[in-house]
């Protein structure tokens, strides 16, 4: 049955005008249709024009852009020609917007309830009382905790995943005909992403509204979209039903996107180090370390984050640290770098104990441990040219000046695969991926032994991110530098780490060689993480939600405890009376592979068998049908 057409994008052109008056086409004649009750995904890397197109359906352009041609009809009305007063009526009532970062798009000074209902009331669609009632209904539908009262809270009082769902309530409150969702799950942890995706899908279905879903992540698209438009450089490469595009991509670019989809984390993907850099003593080692914030009282941090951490990074190895946001990943790197002195325990570099506070460390110790920050945008001084940014550590640590310094800058630029003339450019002139390379080049210039990379690929598109990972691997092989690679993305970590450390609520639940961590038996949390990574398969979301660990573990919040296993409240295998009362023992499966769990290795293996059996049964059922 042909669905009713809601919106029509016809040969849409959006151009930018820069300060010199040059006109740069951003969207170069894009056409597609949106039907009622249908989710249309716009997919492509950054710069493909997907966000610009989606905003056009709200009769909005970012500053500096303008509509250059074509039509964008919603219910037969051209959004591109709407008068300013009319655009205000359209926004929020006919077409609603959901942004990438709910944390930034909620006003910190206004209660959630007022923000959710504001648009519906302003447009006269509902009275305040009706809007409040509808909001509570939506909170219920989105499975938010305490739906009757969550509206009285302020944005900082709820978690990121909840805020993301609250934004969906904000968009839906005015019963819009069309919703625009701009990368709404990109910034979330995998476990939270599932929860949010599930809620979106349910509510879109129940409300029978149409949606434009903007993302660069094909696996997410496979779960939610009915129709897919593949964009590159402001042009449509290919469009079709989700089934056609996912299962039978025609265009080369779509195939490239598919290839860049991070593979399901599994054994055998990690690289291992060349023998020439292998050495016995660890580059950096942490022993029985506890750290936190708010000052140290009686030898314990006021707000403890990390507890009893033992990690060792071998020379020339890549150690991946993974876990959900708030689990203490960045804190671990900050302790290693001396940015946050530990409360107790030791940090050793080449078997020599380091001072906790970097102000007390010697210059060469500082030089050997370098930090690469997540946001290259904020980490690079916008007023300095690249040559100065990279030259600074060369001068500071190695005393290089003039020609020598220049030569070394050239060498480092070559190492991060950027052209030499970048030395005279400013960070603003570079793309996101290039900036991240400069960010790493600066650390590299110190000639470090250990590089601490904090979520360095998280803000990048999959293709650009994959290139950065390839570069990191090449650098490791060439220089023998050790990496501590922090990420919430298990697939990225699995693709190139030698060892993996799984953190949960400030404690290490499992660590070991990549291949062993990603093979059963798993720690229950490791397994939750692995099964939360979306697959490029239609129907994956539904299948996964059926699984036992999802039912138990997905919707719960992380609780930091000092007694018992912190994962207990989300664990499908918890032993009541034991797990929440006693700290779990550390079970050594092989040299260097440790799982911290009350369940024995045999019990963990048994569960794995059951799952395999169940899966086998399911497949068998499918065959019969």
């Amino acid at each position, binding site marked *: 049955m042909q669905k009713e057409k809601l919106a029509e994008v016809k040969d849409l052109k959006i151009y930018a005008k820069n300060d010199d008056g040059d006109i740069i086409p951003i969207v170069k004649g894009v056409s597609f249709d949106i039907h009622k009750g249908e989710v249309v995904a716009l997919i492509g890397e950054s710069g493909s024009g997907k966000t610009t197109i989606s*905003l056009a359906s*709200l009769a*909005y352009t970012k500053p500096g852009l303008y509509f250059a041609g074509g039509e964008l009809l919603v219910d037969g009305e051209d959004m591109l020609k709407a008068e300013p007063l009319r*655009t*205000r*009526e*359209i*926004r*929020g*009532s006919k077409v*609603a*917007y959901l*942004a990438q*970062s709910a944390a*930034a*798009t*909620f*006003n*910190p*000074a*206004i209660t959630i309830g007022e923000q959710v209902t*504001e*648009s519906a009331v*302003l*447009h006269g669609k509902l009275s305040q009382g009706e809007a409040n009632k509808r909001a509570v209904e939506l909170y219920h539908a989105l499975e938010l905790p305490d739906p009757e009262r969550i509206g009285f*809270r*302020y944005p*900082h*009082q709820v978690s990121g995943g909840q805020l993301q769902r609250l934004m969906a309530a*904000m968009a839906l409150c005015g019963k819009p005909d069309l919703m625009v969702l701009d990368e709404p799950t990109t910034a979330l942890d995998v476990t939270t992403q599932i929860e949010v995706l599930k809620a979106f899908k349910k509510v879109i279905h129940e409300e029978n509204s149409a949606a434009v879903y903007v993302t660069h992540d094909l696996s997410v698209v496979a779960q939610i979209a009915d129709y897919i438009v593949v964009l590159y450089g402001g042009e449509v490469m290919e469009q079709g039903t989700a089934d056609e595009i996912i299962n039978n991509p025609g265009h080369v670019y779509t195939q490239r996107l598919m290839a860049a989809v991070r593979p399901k984390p599994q054994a055998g993907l990690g690289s291992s180090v060349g023998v020439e850099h292998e050495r016995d003593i660890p580059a950096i080692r942490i022993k029985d370390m506890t750290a936190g914030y708010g000052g140290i009282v009686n030898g314990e941090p006021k707000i403890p984050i990390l507890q009893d951490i033992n990690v060792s990074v071998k020379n020339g190895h890549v150690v991946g640290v993974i876990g959900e946001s708030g689990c203490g990943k960045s804190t671990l790197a900050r302790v290693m770098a001396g940015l946050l002195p530990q409360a107790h325990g030791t940090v050793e570099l080449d078997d020599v104990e380091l001072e906790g506070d970097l102000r007390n460390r010697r210059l060469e110790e500082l030089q050997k441990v370098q930090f690469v920050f997540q946001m290259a945008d904020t980490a690079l001084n916008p007023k300095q040219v690249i040559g100065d940014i990279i030259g600074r550590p060369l001068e500071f640590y190695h005393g290089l000046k003039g020609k020598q310094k220049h030569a070394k800058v050239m060498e480092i630029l070559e190492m991060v695969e950027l052209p030499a003339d970048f030395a005279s450019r400013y960070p603003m002139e570079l793309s996101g991926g290039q900036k991240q390379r400069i960010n790493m080049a600066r650390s590299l210039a110190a000639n470090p032994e250990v590089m601490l990379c904090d979520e360095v690929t998280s803000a990048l598109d999959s293709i650009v991110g994959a290139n950065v990972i390839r570069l990191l691997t090449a650098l490791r092989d060439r220089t023998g530098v050790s990496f501590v690679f922090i990420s919430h993305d298990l697939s990225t970590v699995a693709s190139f780490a030698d060892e993996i450390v799984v953190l949960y609520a400030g404690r290490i639940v499992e660590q070991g060689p990549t291949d062993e961590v990603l093979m059963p038996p798993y720690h229950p949390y490791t397994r939750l993480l692995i099964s939360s990574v979306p697959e490029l398969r239609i129907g994956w979301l539904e299948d996964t939600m059926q699984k036992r660990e999802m039912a138990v573990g997905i919707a719960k919040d992380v609780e930091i405890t000092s007694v018992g296993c912190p994962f207990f409240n989300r664990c499908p295998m918890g032993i009541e009376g034991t797990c929440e009362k006693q700290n779990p023992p550390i079970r050594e499966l092989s040299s260097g592979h440790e799982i911290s769990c009350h369940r024995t290795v045999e019990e963990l293996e048994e569960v794995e068998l059951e799952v395999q059996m169940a899966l086998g049964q399911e497949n068998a059922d499918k065959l019969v049908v």
Partner: protein
Amino acid sequence: MMTKMVLRRVAIGFATLIVVSIIVFVMTSILPGDVAQIILGQSATPETLAALRKELGMDQPGYVRYFQWLGNMATGDLGISKAGGATIESLISGRLGNTMVMSGLVAVISIPISIALGLWAAMHPGALLDRIVTFGTLSLISVPEFFIATILVLILAVELHWLPSTAYLTGEETFLELLRALAMPLITLVIVVSAQMIRMTRAGILNVMSSPYIEMAILKGVPRRRIILRHAFFNAIGPIVNVIALNLAYLVSGVVVVETIFSYPGLAKLMIDGVQTRDLPLVQACAMIFCSTYVLLILLADVASIMSNPRLRNPK
């Protein structure tokens, strides 16, 4: 959490006052000239000087005098003017009242006008009125206040004869007469302090206007008026109240030029007179009053910005 932060600010305010009192005391003590010498003038003999010093307590060691002075100050005993023999209280009280009337009136007029104009300018950036306001306030900030005062006197008093050029008070004016007498210094001061407050309000709002949550409000179809008043204003309160507080404090202590031009008997002028006559107790008392005003106003501004922060008002 919030109470703790407010208490902390109050404690810091107190500490600031103590430090300032020490500085005031030490600085005035090392000023050249000896009060005993000044009082006795030509008739000074070494014996009478010593006797007077003893009577004034000036033979005691410094720290003893400091604590005595601080204790007196705290209990409201501001001492006796060393130049005239009158109590400092009697000298100050009338002047303090005048200063309070003046700065109170200026505040009542300028704060609403400034915030309204600042908001208006922020609502229509680049519009004609915005450009007039930004250009006008910038010019007014860069012009010294005596210049503004002189121009006003030339136009309103000398040319048009609308207002008296001085603001000398007899103490028996009706309210209307009082307003008329005060009009000139009032207008001058309103212009001087409003310029800064308008600019800060406009800048504070426009700074917040580039936040993602403002773009979200635009995409929700919220009218610009409401965006500014409901979404932006509350997030910009911190810097705005601080600039208001600084300007109010300036009104109490820094208006000596304006007071002089219009012969207005305010506190700042009294302090300058005190410095000229080496009347240390008077200078000390005035300095402490000015300082307390600053500390109190900045404290109020801090508390206001803490209260306006929902994170602190509603902890997790």
